[in-house]
């Protein structure tokens, strides 16, 4: 309870600010309309009119909430109008990218820790790769992957998501695989342990806490990548596609509802990864 109270207070504060901003921002339209109609409106008349516009500049929370509710529970979840369905499409893309990102990140980290030349040549480029705005690359990735015969929108989306999510995994794994100190490494050497044995029995277990810590960041990055990938990849399915359509057809409510649906998805993903992390820690005997 002591933890929930401050969060609730801040949330309520934010909602109050949101309502105030909605009145302020949507009022221009009400006044303009009145002027065009040749009438005047008082402040008291104006406020209710800002609460239920079809295309508000900033929809008030209850409008977004209603649209979100309609999208989530208003129809069968298999319907194309269901946000659950589009959320699932985005979720699938996120998971594919997340998986691909983990594999790439871990393999690269292993190679970097094992071979000095990999460390020296690849690591700087891995950092530079993250400074390239992925959105600029997205259309290129789509054309290239279709050129390679990977048709469909799933693969390019997953590549974009993986591009963003491999980096946190890579950085943490390199740190983790290098975390055993010289004494431990020396000890294994006195046992006559092979490279492979050192890796399996010492380096890999030692890197696990680092690995799990990076997953939360990676899954969030993967979701961002998927949504960015859905914006330009031929707007068909997924939360990103709905945001785009909402923007194009002047339906701000669809846009806001998709935005909040993606927020919910992000929350769920981080929650699940957090639980997995805690379970893994417990199994590995970390203090609870």
């Amino acid at each position: 309870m002591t933890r929930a109270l401050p969060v609730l207070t801040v949330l309520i504060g934010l909602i109050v600010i949101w309502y105030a901003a909605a009145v302020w921002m949507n009022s221009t339209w009400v006044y303009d309309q009145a002027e065009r109609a040749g009438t005047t409106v008082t402040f008291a008349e104006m406020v209710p009119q800002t609460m239920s516009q079809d295309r508000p500049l900033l929809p008030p929370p209850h409008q977004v909430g209603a649209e979100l509710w309609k999208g989530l529970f208003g129809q069968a979840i298999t319907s194309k109008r269901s946000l659950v369905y589009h959320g699932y499409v985005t979720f699938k893309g996120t998971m594919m990218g997340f998986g691909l990102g983990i594999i790439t990140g871990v393999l690269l980290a292993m190679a970097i820790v094992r071979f000095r030349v990999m460390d020296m040549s690849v690591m700087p480029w891995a950092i530079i790769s993250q400074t390239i705005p992925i959105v600029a690359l997205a259309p290129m990735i789509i054309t290239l992957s279709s050129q390679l015969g990977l048709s469909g929108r799933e693969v390019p989306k997953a590549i974009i998501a993986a591009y963003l999510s491999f980096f946190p995994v890579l950085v943490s794994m390199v740190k983790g695989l290098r975390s055993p100190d010289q004494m431990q490494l020396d000890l294994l050497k006195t046992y006559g342990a092979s490279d492979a044995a050192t890796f399996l029995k010492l380096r890999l277990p030692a890197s696990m806490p680092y690995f799990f810590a990076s997953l939360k960041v990676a899954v969030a990055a993967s979701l961002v990548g998927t949504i960015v990938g859905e914006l330009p990849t031929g707007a068909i399915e997924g939360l990103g596609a709905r945001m785009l359509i909402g923007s194009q057809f002047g339906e701000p409510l669809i846009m806001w509802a998709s935005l909040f649906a993606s927020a919910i998805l992000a929350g769920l993903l981080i929650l699940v990864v957090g639980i997995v992390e805690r379970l893994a820690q417990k199994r590995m005997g970390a203090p609870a």
Partner: protein
Amino acid sequence: MSVLILALVVWLVLWALNVWLAGSALARKGVGKALVPLIFGVAILVLWEGLVRGLEVSFVILPPPSLIAAKIASSLPVLWQDAAQTILKGAIPGFLIGCGAGVLVAILIDRSPFLQRGLLPIGNFVAALPIVGLAPILVMWFGFDWQSKAAVVVAMVFFPMLVNTVAGLQASERMQRDLMATWGASYLQTLVKLRLPAAMPFIFNGLKIASTLALIGAIVAEFFGSPTYGMGFRISTEVGRLGLDMVWAEIAVAALAGSVLYGIVSLIERWVTFWHPSQRH
């Protein structure tokens, strides 16, 4: 086909050179550290050029690096104009305002543990959200020019910065704070002399994250409306005209700008947090 084989041979030679360099005494010096990644980059470009020319990939799909370089050389004024609009007017002001606001809010709520406990989980959550989705909305609110781009950047960098600074302000040790108290230091003195310096590694971590986010935000926002110049504008327009060499030229500029921004932040970090273990060599 022979072009492809030649490129592969060059790639292998360069890789072998790198393996030798990494094992040699040069690798411990600055020269070697800069040379190895450089050779790796050149090798990739050679391979790219060879693949495109050898497999006769249409330039409309993937232009070879030589063509992109020629395009960069021939359109410097346009690239500069685009970069000035997107980076100098959109990304940098947004980065400064967003990061400044993040640090400031973190310091303001520092005295209220209640607000901190309320804001931190929400900030953590928002920092993980695809804020990019706000871009069309912010373009609608702030108009076409750089203001809306800066606004998107502010929205993207604010929360990571806030979260990192709040964590940083809690990084000083109990003993250090007690020591300050025994010296009769005021809240402000403790903040300036102990807690802010102790927070610097965290703040710079946030700044590094923000520096890459800033470019992404400014470019995405241009997809949803812009004047007739800017990097995002050029990329989306040239994709439509099949001017892919120009698109890659803009990507190269973006990568360069991103790396420079990141590099500047790292340099300042080294200078400010020289005392931190991670900076000792």
